[in-house]
């Protein structure tokens, strides 16, 4: 993990065809209730300022092209977090004619997955902290 973004990761949230369930949880995770700014986590105004791309939803073929283009526009050190079962492997939309078979990692490299349908906001924040090496994993826990 680079020290450059360790204490100030800026997020970009992109919905590639989700049902909005995961988006609501991502938005809940950046509210003052969970207060991600204590970790330096902020939403970025533009993809060109973003450090971490949060992908939610099954990747449709049309959104897949846009997702790749967004990823290529991100600067230097960049990470991708796939939130939810759909971004992991397609979820309930697996095998649909309009979605890419498999999850977001078929289009762009993914650094962390958050399982769940939808995951809790705490889990999304914890995944970010694990990615940034700022949270320890307990002995019997795998990730």
């Amino acid at each position, binding site marked *: 993990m680079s020290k450059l973004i360790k204490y100030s990761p800026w997020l970009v949230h992109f919905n590639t065809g989700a049902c909005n369930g995961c988006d609501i949880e991502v938005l809940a995770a950046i509210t003052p209730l969970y207060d991600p700014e204590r970790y330096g986590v902020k939403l970025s105004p533009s993809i060109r300022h973003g450090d971490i791309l949060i992908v939610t939803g099954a990747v*449709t*073929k*049309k959104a897949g092209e846009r997702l790749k283009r967004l990823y290529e526009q991100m600067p230097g050190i960049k990470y991708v977090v796939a939130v939810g079962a759909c971004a992991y492997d397609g979820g309930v939309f697996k095998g649909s*004619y*309009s979605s890419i078979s498999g999850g977001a990692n078929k289009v762009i490299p993914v650094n962390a997955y958050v399982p769940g349908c939808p995951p809790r906001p705490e889990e999304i924040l914890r995944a970010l902290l694990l990615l940034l090496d700022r949270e320890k994993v307990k002995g019997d826990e795998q990730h």
Partner: protein
Amino acid sequence: MSSIKEIEDIFSSYIIGKDTVKPNRPRFHIDVSNLKEAITLLKQRFGEEALYISNIIGVDKITEGIIEVNYFIHIIPLANTIVIKVVVPRDKPQVPSLIDMIPGAYSGECETYDLLGVDFVGNKYLKRSFFVPTDVVSRDIFPLRKDAKV
């Protein structure tokens, strides 16, 4: 319920059948050739900016050989939504476009054309691959048709 009666009176001569989708949402069945006249009457009664097409839903009924096109029209002064149903044959689905009267019909018509192949005559913006991915379009498939193999 008086408002629904009021709407019914406006284009009562065009109505072939009537049923109810759910309470307070009537569905009027209209012949496809009278669709534009019925909308014109609604516009004359409620004004230019009173109609809002919230949805255009096509239904493929393969056993009957027809495609239903349902227009969900929200009438703002009455705060009520009505449904106008037209039926077209499955092998030649042609419906007059409403885009010259209600520009907001654009996205609904393009979507129904792309997914079901209903041709809205007069809409020059219709194109494939509005929603459907290009590899499905290149095989000339309308994915919401019941006999589509995708």
